[in-house]
C-alpha cells in the first residue's frame, strides 16, 4: 500500500462516538462492528460498547461468541469498574463491552447508573469508543447519544427509517436544548415544544427560538449556541442507487431548513451481499474482503473519522444528563 495515509495514533483524549438512529434493523450494530474494526486496523485502539441491553448482538458481529462479562454486570452493580468488562476480540486493537445476559425485568440502568456509565466511558483507555445504541428513544438512549462528540445517525433509504431518524434527531436536539437552558420558565417552554401538538403553536425549532428570544434574550443566545453546536453525523446504509446516496444530502437540507440544525454527511455504505454473509458468519468484514463493497465504503468512513479533529466542545461534553426519569419498575 504505497498511498497509506499515516494517522497520528499518539495518546490523546478518547473520542466517544454514539451510534443511533431510532429504527431497528438499519445496520447500527453492523456499522459499529465494522467501523471499529476498520479503525483498529488503521492502528487506533478501539473499544466498541454494546449499549443495547435489550437486544445485544455486537459481540456476535465482532466474533466473540460468549462474552464472559457484560454491561449487565455494571447495571446490576455486580461490577463497578467498567474497564473490567473489556473483552478482547479476534481483531487486534479492538475490544468490546458486550451487553448480554441482562436482567430482562430491569434492562435499563437507573439515572444514577447512567451518569456513572457515561463518566466511566470517557475514562476508557482508547482512541475511539463507539457506543452502539439500541433502537427506540428510551431516555437512556437519548442521554447516551449526547455523551461524546456528535453521534452518528444511521439511516436506510426507506420511509420508516427516515421518519425514525428525524424523530430521533428531534428528540436528541430538544433534550440537549432543555439541558442548556438555565431559566426554569424557558425550560418549561422547551418542554412544551417537545410535544408536537403543543398549544403554543410551536412547530419548529425556529418558532421555539423566537419564543425563547422574546421571553429571555440571554437564553435566546444560549439557544442559538446550542443549536449551532448540535451537529449529528449521518450515514446512509444499504445504498443501491445514486438517488439513495443523495438522500444524505436531502436529509441534511431538511434538517437545515426545518430544524435549523446542521448535519454532517459522513458517508454511505452500499447494499452488499458479502456484508450480509459476514453477519451470518458472525464476524466483521475482513481487511480486504474479496468482493466486499461495503468494506471499502466503511474504510472510507473510518479514514474520514480518523482524519477529522475531535469536534465536541468541552461545554457540550460536560453537560449533565437529563433530569431523572422515573424508572418503570
Amino acid at each position, binding site marked *: 500500500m504505497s498511498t497509506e495515509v499515516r494517522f497520528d495514533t499518539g495518546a490523546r483524549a478518547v473520542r466517544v462516538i454514539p451510534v443511533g438512529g431510532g429504527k431497528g434493523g438499519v445496520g447500527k450494530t453492523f456499522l459499529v462492528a465494522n467501523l471499529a474494526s476498520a479503525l483498529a486496523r488503521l492502528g487506533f485502539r478501539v473499544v466498541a460498547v454494546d449499549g443495547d441491553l435489550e437486544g445485544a448482538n455486537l459481540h456476535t458481529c465482532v466474533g466473540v461468541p460468549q462474552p464472559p462479562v457484560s454491561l449487565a454486570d455494571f447495571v446490576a452493580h455486580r461490577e463497578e469498574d467498567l474497564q473490567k468488562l473489556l473483552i478482547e476480540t479476534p481483531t487486534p486493537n479492538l475490544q468490546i463491552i458486550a451487553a448480554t445476559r441482562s436482567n430482562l425485568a430491569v434492562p435499563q440502568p437507573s439515572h444514577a447508573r447512567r451518569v456513572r456509565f457515561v463518566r466511566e466511558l470517557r475514562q476508557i483507555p482508547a482512541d475511539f469508543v463507539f457506543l452502539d445504541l439500541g433502537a427506540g428513544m428510551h431516555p437512556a438512549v437519548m442521554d447516551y447519544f449526547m455523551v461524546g462528540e456528535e453521534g452518528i445517525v444511521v439511516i436506510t433509504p*426507506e420511509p420508516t427509517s427516515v421518519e425514525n431518524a428525524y424523530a430521533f434527531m428531534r428528540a436528541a436536539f430538544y433534550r440537549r436544548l432543555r439541558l442548556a437552558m438555565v431559566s426554569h420558565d424557558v425550560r418549561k417552554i422547551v418542554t412544551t415544544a417537545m410535544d408536537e401538538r403543543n398549544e403554543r403553536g410551536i412547530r419548529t425549532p*425556529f418558532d421555539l427560538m423566537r419564543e425563547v428570544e422574546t421571553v429571555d434574550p440571554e437564553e435566546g443566545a444560549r439557544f442559538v449556541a446550542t*443549536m449551532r453546536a448540535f451537529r449529528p453525523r449521518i450515514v446512509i446504509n444499504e445504498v443501491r442507487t*445514486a438517488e439513495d446516496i*443523495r438522500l444524505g444530502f436531502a*436529509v441534511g*437540507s431538511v434538517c*437545515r431548513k426545518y430544524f435549523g440544525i446542521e448535519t454532517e454527511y459522513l*458517508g454511505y455504505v452500499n447494499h452488499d451481499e458479502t456484508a450480509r454473509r459476514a453477519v451470518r458468519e458472525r464476524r466483521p468484514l475482513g481487511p480486504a474482503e474479496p468482493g466486499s463493497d461495503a468494506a471499502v*465504503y466503511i474504510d472510507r468512513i473510518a479514514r474520514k473519522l480518523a482524519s477529522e479533529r475531535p469536534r465536541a466542545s468541552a461545554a457540550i461534553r460536560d453537560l449533565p444528563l437529563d433530569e431523572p426519569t422515573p424508572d418503570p419498575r
Partner: protein
Amino acid sequence: MKPLSEQNHYEILEIPRTASPQEIERAFRLARETYSEGSLAGYSVFGEGEVSALRERAETAFRVLSDPEAREVYDASLVAAEAPEVRGAPAPEPIQAPPAPIEPFEEIDEESGEYDGARLRRCRLRRGIELEDIAGITKINPSYLLFIEEERFKELPAAVYVRGFVSSYASCVGLDPRLVSVSYMKRLAAAPAERGRSRFSR
C-alpha cells in the same frame, strides 16, 4: 439562522455566494428532488403546501442565479440591502457556514489499479449516475450493465461486445475507457471457470 421566508436565493439553494454555475445547477436539482411531492426525505416533515412553496422558492432562485445578468442584478441588490448593517452593529454571525458544494465524497483510494465490477459501481454512484442513465446514453441493455458491475460473466455476450460495453460505461462515468476496458477484460479472461459453469449452479 433565518426562517425560510427571510432566506435569499443562495440560502434557499444552500450554496455560497461564490457558487459556480455547475454548483448552482447541482444544488437546484437536489432541492427539486428533496422538495418533490412525496420525497423520501421531506414527506414526513413538511406539509403539502410547504413542500410546493419550497419548490417554488428553489425554482425562482435557480431562474435568477442561472442567468448571469439576472444574477448580477440580484447580487447587487443583496449587497445594497446588507450595507446598512455593516455600518451599524456588526451583523450576527450566521448559523450556516457556507455549505459545502454538493460533491463531498472523494474518490475512494483504490489500492490496485484494477477495475473490477464493484469499483466501476463505486465510481458511478459517487458521480450520482444511475444505470438507467448509462443505458439511455449508450443504448446498452441495462441488464448487461448490471451484469458487468456484478461480474456475472457467463450472462454477458461475447467478449468483443463486453469490451465495447465496458468502454462506453467508462466514458459515461468519466473514466478512461481504454484503461478500464483493458483492466476489466483481464478479469473476465481470468475467470474461465465461471463461463463454463451451468446457469443453475448459482
